[in-house]
């Protein structure tokens, strides 16, 4: 995946950088294979975006971020639209108060275990729901380890 395509909120690890005029400066800032980068936020119209490298925040245009090949770090939260079906733990939900309340009523709340089904519906402790793309995008999850290997039981 290219850095310009990494979802906001994700933490990614640099794999490879294509050489260009600005690579010396990027290397100086620490954009190097093996280094982790956090995608912070985007400017109006999606470009440029803010990234955190170590503890410095930098702004990069997509045309430059495209030259950086990355993979998502293991422990990086990703939006539900970005992951393959399976079980996940909800890390954080990036939305307003009202949307958050609606989601929590469905059982989608920070710390809850949810399962993304093949048809992109979400199975929670409260049932199976179709929450829609817009909201899926706001729900950041990390893959489940052993602790949630049991079935999600309906309450």
């Amino acid at each position, binding site marked *: 995946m290219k850095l310009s395509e990494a979802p906001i909120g994700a933490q990614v690890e640099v794999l490879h*950088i294509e*050489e*260009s*005029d*600005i*690579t*010396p*400066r*990027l*290397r*100086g*800032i*620490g954009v*190097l*294979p*093996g*280094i982790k980068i956090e995608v912070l*936020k*985007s*400017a*109006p*119209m999606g*470009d*440029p975006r*803010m990234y955190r*490298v*170590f*503890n*410095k*925040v*930098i*702004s*990069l*245009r997509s*045309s*430059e971020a495209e030259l950086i090949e990355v993979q998502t770090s293991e422990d990086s939260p990703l939006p539900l639209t970005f992951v393959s079906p399976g079980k996940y733990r909800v890390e954080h939900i990036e939305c307003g108060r009202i949307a958050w309340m609606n989601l929590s009523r469905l059982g989608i709340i920070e710390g809850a275990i949810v399962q993304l089904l093949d048809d992109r519906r979400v199975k929670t402790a409260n049932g199976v729901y179709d929450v829609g793309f817009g909201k899926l995008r706001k729900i950041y999850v990390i893959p489940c380890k052993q602790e949630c290997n049991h079935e999600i039981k309906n309450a």
Partner: protein
Amino acid sequence: MVITVGLIGNPNVGKTSLFNKLVGARQYVANWPGVTVTRVEGATSYKEQTLHFIDLPGLYTLSATSLDEKVTRDFLLYSPPNVTIVVIDSMSPEQGMYLLLETLELNLNVIAVFNAIDEAKKNSIKFDKSSLESYLRVPIVLTSAHTGEGITELMETILATFRKPNRPKLLDYGPEIESKVAEFEQYFEDKYNKRFLSLKLVEGDKFAMELLKKDVEPTSVLPSNMSDLAIKIAKRRYEYVMNVLNRAMSKSESAITSMEAIDHVFTHKYIGIPIFFALMYLAFNFTFKASEPLVGLIEVGFQKLTDLIGSNSIFTSLISQGIINGVGSVISFIPSIFALFFALGIMEESGYLPRIAFLMDRAMYSLKLTGRSFMTLLLGFGCNVSSVMAARGLTDERERVTTILVSPFVSCSARIPVYLMIIGIAFPNHRAEAFFVMYLLSIALTALSARIINKIVMKGESIPLVMELPRYRFPSLSNVATYMWNRGKHFLQKAGTIILVASVIVWVLIYFPDPTNIENSFAAMIGKGLQFIFAPLGFQWQTVSALIFGSVAKEIIVSSFAQFYGGVGNIVLDPVTASALMVFILGYIPCFATLAAIKSETNSLKYPIISVVYSLSISYILAFLVSIIGRVIV
């Protein structure tokens, strides 16, 4: 004995703040990267030694690309100081330590300073100084340029390092790279630091290639897998840095600060830009409103003084008309200028300025510029010379020249007195609105000019932008006051020098040859002689003469008007002519100081000439349009 001490480091880590603390100077400090663009020197004495400090532009790597970075690299390479201080930001030490490792290759006496230690303490970041020292093998000083912590210790360390040089070689880059470095050393002359240059050559540095011996062809010697090697070198440095920090730094989990919450709003996808314009409106409104009562008071004071002295003899006329009325009419607007600098100071000190660059970057695509140049241009609201200078921080040469050429259209604070005078006469009931419209026009004209210049003078592609967004800092009143005074006092100096001289010259041109009737004066002759050019715009001879005198510095327009009419209060201008006049003044010619800066920064006469010709024509056309449209409407 003089000890020279160079200050280098990443941008915005506090090099200039430290410099100011060390030598008691008041150099320009602000919370965005790239403030210092030239070397600044200052001396102080400590324990009977003279310490000569050199403050330098910031950089991330000695492989410099922009002009300001090259200043620093050339300084270290060609005139290495006795002691080099690498300033590192305690809140993000990794990048600073990378630069430190790079600098150590230069075989200099190095001290590593971890600055902003006050902020680190607040965020529970702790450094173990002795283990830093043992891993990095250079003296370490923890400082705060704000609280003054560590400054005396730094002075001591400088003396000690000077007396007992330490030149550690730290990193071994492994056989593959070390053998290349050894091989490349033969390609450089003995007068250079061979190891440093050959290492830079392995990193693919363009500058190192230029310094190769005459008979060496870069393409024939350079390895094919150079970018791999460059990455290996950089990784080796960062691995070392991370290892050292793992052992020598402790930090607790960071909590979301209130500043991050504020940033969420300021850089918001949708409301970020509207907030910026709202803040601009507030700032200009503040400039206008905060200073208004004071401006009025000073005006009245000067008026009283002129009346008291009278103008019966040649001597009293010179004093009351030439000096008090001429210079006073400009001085009375100085509170407005200070108010504007107060607002700009908050913007620069808080860290909001680079966020604007981030927000506006996309909009600048179409002008083939970057948000960084938008930010540079904003500085021009203070003084156009600042933005012409700050353009050095732009990596791309085409972008830099375009930014320099459009800088004069950003309405600088010297134009405030002129607008306020004209607005006061022609739009007494809509003063704040008219004032703001001038600023909107200024932005539009700057954008239009960038478009035109990109089309005609320089053709180019869009360019990359890598910009650091510094953390927010709460602007302290004393910092902002210092900033305001530093920038504003320039106008007081101007009033005492160039404006005073020009006012006296204008007085001479009015007083002779016929003191009784101004219509027969030399000033009137000049104005009437050239009036035909401005006839389509409806300008009187007084306006024409004032514009000619004002080409030196815009404030002189006010001074000339005041003298022609015997006081600002007596001037008459109808709204349409006044609008055309303000539009003309907005662009018509960069002041001498700006032209000189354009010449020295572009190192050619071509650009100042282009600037004069272009600005005269565009403002004439615009003013003409305004007067036609105005006459149709009114």
